[in-house]
């Protein structure tokens, strides 16, 4: 075998080996990310699109009905506020869109997902309004109130790095 053909063979082997290595790493990382995504319900981090369709899987703060995977809530993304009452303090009348948002906050007998509540309040705050809010944490008997929800990050700052809906925006009050 001549020196040039040996060199050609070597280049071919090295670029193909580099491809194999990079592809294995990247595809392995993708499969791992997918596995992590699908495990998110057990950490209270996602319900939509984790392949739990028709699974009858139920979870709450204290546990779930799975036979061997424990529940370990890591955030409040899965939670909902109860008995929400919102009032907008504004120098101008609300337009139709703002009224829609306020109506959603003031639904009777609904539990509002924390992240959806933040997204809605953030929109009202971004439009220059002040939002007075009364709400009850599901684990507490008495309501909390705030005169300016826009100043409370827990109520008005959605996680900007989360691209899509993770939980139902609202549901019946328990």
């Amino acid at each position, binding site marked *: 075998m001549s020196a040039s053909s040996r060199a*050609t063979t070597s280049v071919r082997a090295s670029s193909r080996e580099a491809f194999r290595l990079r592809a294995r790493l990247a595809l392995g990382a993708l499969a791992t990310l997918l596995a992590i995504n*699908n495990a998110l319900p057990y950490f209270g981090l996602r319900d939509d699109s984790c392949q739990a*369709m028709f699974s*009858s899987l139920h979870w709450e703060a204290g546990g779930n009905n799975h036979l061997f995977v424990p529940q370990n809530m890591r955030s409040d993304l899965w939670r909902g506020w109860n008995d929400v009452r919102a009032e907008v303090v504004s120098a101008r009348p609300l337009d139709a869109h703002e009224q829609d948002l306020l109506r959603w906050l003031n639904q009777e007998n609904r539990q509002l997902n924390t*992240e959806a509540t933040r997204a809605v309040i953030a929109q009202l705050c971004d439009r220059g309004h002040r939002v007075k809010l009364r709400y009850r944490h599901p684990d507490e008997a008495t309501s909390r109130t705030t005169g300016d929800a826009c100043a409370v990050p827990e109520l008005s700052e959605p996680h900007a790095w989360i691209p899509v809906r993770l939980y139902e925006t609202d549901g019946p009050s328990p």
Partner: protein
Amino acid sequence: MSVDGRLRATALLLPMALLGHTLQLLGEDTPWAPHAWARYWRTPGWHLYLPPWSIVAIAVALIVSALGLAIRRTRPWVAAVIVTYVAHYLTYPYRIRNHMTLMLASLVAVAIAWVIGARLREGGRRLIDLRGRGAAPRLVDRYAVRGVAAVLCVTYFYAGLHKTNEGFLAFDERSAAFRGTTDFWIWGDLGSVAPTWAIALATYGTLVVEYAFPIVALFVPRLTIPCVIGLMCFHFPHVAVMNVADYPMLASAFYPSLFTAARWRLLERELYAPSRWNVAGAAIGMGAQLWWMPWWGELTIFGIGVMAIWGWWIGSMLRLYATAAARPKGARMAAEVAVR
């Protein structure tokens, strides 16, 4: 499109899968309805940072890409579907369906292999280019197919894992297997109550199929065809009576990745040539859907097409077995060695 027949088959099935996706989203989310507009604004996500017209533009671009792929199965159209689908997923303003993450991960697996291949050169040529030419297109596409297969295995495994719970195994109304089997019995005119053995088969069978079939299909080539037929039979009640034909169709678009390249080459000859087996299979599939479907809805009608494709596919796979069985034993062994 590709030197790899499995990727060609996936490209052929993708437009149908995207049709199912579109039908489900439009049918359930009804984005033209006034309440959908209100829902748009109270759903958290990146769509809130973008003008609404851009979300519509992305969806339209995806539909155009899918139509382009249906008309001309070329790599640029597959690439267009991948790019627009990723954008569509990340900006979708309503519930992200289970099938959407499977689709996203599978398309990204293909994209990863293609991008890595396009960035590496051999003797001045890329390993692969956007036309599918290059120094090593077969190698690149083989890895794309492997990535898709890994996504399928992870997805089905978790579907089984989530179902390993007291509710699903309860043999009562809490269990989707119980409800689905009862519906299947009623709509198929098999009786008003599903027998216990059928519910047990549906309950434990679901776990066996979801945990094991894709993995066995991938790692035991001799069992790929029985496992793929098993997956299709498992999904039939979902298509027929549970009004979710979109997910099974979308998953099946990636089933070719579970085959070895050699076995797919053998099957391809059967798939792309009409025979009594695949024509009869398609007719039986359509007939079964027409018999069981509880109402005429967008996804149940779509299910007729899904069952026609699967019937054709199953007929082709069975003919492959029948042809092999008809050969003398020595030739059978030689053929078996050849496809390993």
